[in-house]
């Protein structure tokens, strides 16, 4: 699998880290734009669609705050092939007209399209891949419903309530795609949780604190693993260089050594003593550290190659978690749920930690940690300057369909509409490292876009057409 670049917001400021970055196994330095992305495991992604369309759009929301009027969009080969006033229509192409075109919505915290047992599994490990639990044959109607509501992709996660949920994946929700086509990114995030009541009652405060320590412990083991790996490569390189130099020296000095030896031999014979060879010494070859898939996954998260999404709710754990992870400079932390996140809003802004809010309308099965959740959280955090993402909560598959509705209700409770729209499109795409494919309406991106009859996230606007990887999957007729 090709390595992906990072989206680090925190510059590596430690000398040690800078040294590590110089070595090839560390990702590109912070600030670099994403260049290469991981492709799904097998085969090419959905770019093979033979369908093509021309969309005549009254308004195109390219990205939040950037709107073009009276534009034509050419969808071909799965992606947006052209966009502009004077895009020519190839002969015989199907034309579609609509008032507003925008990027399809992404649910960054969904339970849709994943094997139910894997969602509930609490024995998941850092290396557990949600991509292996994606069920392209199941929940077809729910996925279709989600598409009709404009939700085109989702981050799904095995082990949603486990302490460590493993690696989450971003998938397209189009039920007609094969697994290879549906997978946008098989390794999008690493998920953990702190202080959830799992099955039994709520844990006591010390256990919850213990879970915070575990998160830090896990990250440390990842850091140590990577450090070892880097040191090994460095040591090996050094050793090989040293050996090469040594050999060159020995070759060079061989004549002299031979002369000395012959002299020594002659002298020993003369003195009637036993000849002693010179003792040869060299440094031991460094040993390769043993492979550990779990620590490798933790290392990727600790180094910011994967965002770390931690579901955590209570003020005390939020505070402690932020404290515990403060030293992990490259970490890209996303807090999920975060019911009491207002109390740490300042730190969140300062550390540029985003919060994934699930603005649920009602929770009949509300667990302890969700107590006090209200629809205003997203708005208040946003006003405090925290980057807010919106998700459906990762437990109920049906809720992914309702994400636009949930977002609209968050808007009704104080979240700026534009912030909500950003959260569902480019905000989610950026956080999940899929912004090269999803999240905006730009030439070259995958055509996962919506045609609406009005402004997005309004109760009166309906979704007219939905494109998934360049295929027209929803029309007013179907």
């Amino acid at each position, binding site marked *: 699998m090709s390595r992906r670049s990072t989206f680090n917001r925190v510059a590596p400021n430690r000398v040690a880290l800078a040294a590590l970055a110089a070595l090839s196994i560390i990702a590109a330095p912070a600030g670099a734009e994403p260049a290469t992305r991981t492709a799904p495991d097998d085969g090419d992604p959905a770019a093979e669609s033979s369908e093509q369309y021309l969309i005549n759009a009254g308004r195109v929301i390219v990205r939040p705050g950037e709107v073009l009027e009276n534009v034509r969009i050419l969808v071909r080969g799965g992606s947006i092939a052209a966009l502009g006033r004077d895009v020519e229509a190839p002969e015989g192409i199907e034309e579609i007209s609509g008032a507003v075109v925008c990027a399809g919505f992404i649910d960054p915290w969904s339970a849709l399209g994943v094997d139910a047992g*894997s969602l509930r599994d609490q024995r*998941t*490990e850092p290396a557990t*891949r949600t991509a*292996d639990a994606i069920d*392209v*044959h199941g929940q077809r109607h729910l996925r279709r419903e989600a598409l009709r509501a404009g939700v085109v992709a989702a981050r799904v996660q095995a*082990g949603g309530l486990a302490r460590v949920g493993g690696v989450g994946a971003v998938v397209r929700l189009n039920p007609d795609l094969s697994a290879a086509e549906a997978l946008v990114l098989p390794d999008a995030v690493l998920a953990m949780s702190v202080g959830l009541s799992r099955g039994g009652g709520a844990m006591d405060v010390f256990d919850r604190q213990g879970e915070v320590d575990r998160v830090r412990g896990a990250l440390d083991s990842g850091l140590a693993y990577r450090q070892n790996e880097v040191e090994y490569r460095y040591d090996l390189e050094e050793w090989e260089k040293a050996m090469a130099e040594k050999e060159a020296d020995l070759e060079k000095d061989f004549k002299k050594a031979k002369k000395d030896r012959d002299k020594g031999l002659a002298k020993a014979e003369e003195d009637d003593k036993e000849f002693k060879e010179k003792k040869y010494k060299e440094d031991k070859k460094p040993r390769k550290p*043993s492979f550990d*898939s779990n620590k490798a996954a933790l290392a990727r998260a600790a180094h910011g190659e994967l965002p770390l999404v931690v579901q955590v709710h209570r003020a005390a754990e939020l505070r402690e978690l932020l404290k515990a992870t403060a030293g992990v400079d490259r970490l890209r932390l996303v807090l999920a749920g975060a019911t009491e996140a207002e109390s740490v809003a300042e730190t969140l802004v300062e550390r540029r930690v985003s919060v994934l809010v699930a603005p649920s309308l009602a929770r009949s099965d509300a667990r302890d940690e969700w107590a006090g959740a209200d629809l205003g959280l997203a708005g208040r955090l946003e006003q405090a300057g925290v980057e807010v993402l919106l998700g459906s909560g990762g437990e109920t598959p049906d809720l992914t369909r309702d994400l636009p509705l949930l977002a609209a209700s968050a808007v009704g409770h104080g979240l700026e509409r534009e912030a909500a729209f950003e959260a569902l499109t480019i905000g989610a795409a950026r956080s999940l490292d899929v912004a090269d494919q999803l999240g905006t309406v730009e030439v070259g991106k995958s055509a996962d876009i919506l045609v609406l009859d009005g402004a997005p996230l309004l109760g009166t606007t309906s979704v007219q057409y939905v494109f998934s990887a360049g295929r027209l999957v929803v029309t007013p007729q179907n």
Partner: protein
Amino acid sequence: MRSTIQSALALTLLAAPLLAGDGRLAIRAGKIITQAGEAIIDGTIVIENGRITAVGAEVEVPWDVEVLDATHLTAFPGFVEAHGNRGMDRPNENIDVAPFLNIRDSIDPVNFYFEDSLRWGVTTINVQQGASCVIGGQGMVVKPFGMTVEEMLVRPASGIKLSASPKSGKSRATQAQALRKAFTELEHYLAGLVQKQKDGDDSARREALYQGRDLDSEEAREGRAQAGSAAWTVADLELIPRGEIDEKQAPLLDLVEGRIPAWFYCGAPMDVRVALEVARKNGFLAQTTLVLASSCWKAADEIAEAGVPVVLSAALMHIERDPVTGEEIETFVPKVFKEKGVRYALASSNQSTQSLWFQAASCVAQGMSRAEALAAVTTVPADILGLGKRVGSLEKGKDGNVLLLSGDPLSVTSFVEYVVLEGSTVYDRSKDVRMRHLLEGETPEGTAPAGSEEPKVHEHEDEVVTEEEPVDAGEDKE
């Protein structure tokens, strides 16, 4: 008590050496369905040394060969069970990855299953570990007759069982993780061995000596480069004598090198992707047969593309409810695979039936051709097992396995009258005490008369514990 009587019966039946012959037999049958060309009316089958030497209408029978007069019966090659996990004292194992185990240690020759197999006319059975595993033990092909496993043996190494469906305690995500991990570990183990060898550390040899493994045979001393088509290779593997490879890893390496078949269980259509991916990546796709649950017809396209054969190990009619309309949707599974061009064998181990003829007859009832249905229980499974030249049809050179039926093999009124295995008559319905007991109410000698009470265990009436459930008055309350 009952089981004692049954065991006694089993022994009576199995210890009937009078029936067995010396591997030489001529059978005159009213009709011979050969499964290799047209049926023969009033034909003869000659078996010598356990193999068929002649089949036809005009066949000369050597003067000293015993003749079984079955001119009122129909001869048919025995049914072939491509995959099953009955006949063992324990079909599953707790260890996740246990390729070092062998079914031969678990097969129970006096298990009723084998006796019943004769009654149902199944003459070749591939016994594999149950599906509750990650990587299970190695199976073997047996015939259902013999007092020891050696006597039953047809082919000793019929392949390793794997499962893409979660074993207890796992979810699909962690099951896939465990599967992948087993092969990653193999790769790292082998690379480690090679490195050790290069570094002059031959502790693997001492470990093999300590464990008493074979190091002297040619096979064990041989060092071979990694063969096969796996996506990974360990360089310089030829430095390692094969005998030094640990017994847990050696069978997996055989699998990776394509030297033994794989039987990959899929309990849901989503499992097929993981199974095929694991098989492809680790180089044993060409040796893989998928063992499928009914719903897996949904993955028929993927299976057809991969070109692997399948064993349909569950109900042939898949029934599900449309989640939107509530309508019941019936899919006849073999038909789907036939349409997609996938080679399939029917298996008997499921709740709806115990017999292969019933499975084949169901196919005919669903409109499939008789030839297709019969092939799926004879020649196709024989081919999948690599025994196409030995069993599955009545031809010169094949094993002398013949069923003599009272009618057509797919008729519900037909009985298996005789079973001939490798030229020996091992079953004769007229002497089947148990069958007569069950069907005709005939009491076998030495058993208590029907209706007689079992001896009382308790001396005092009031000590007898009532088996009736106490009525719980509070059961209905919320």
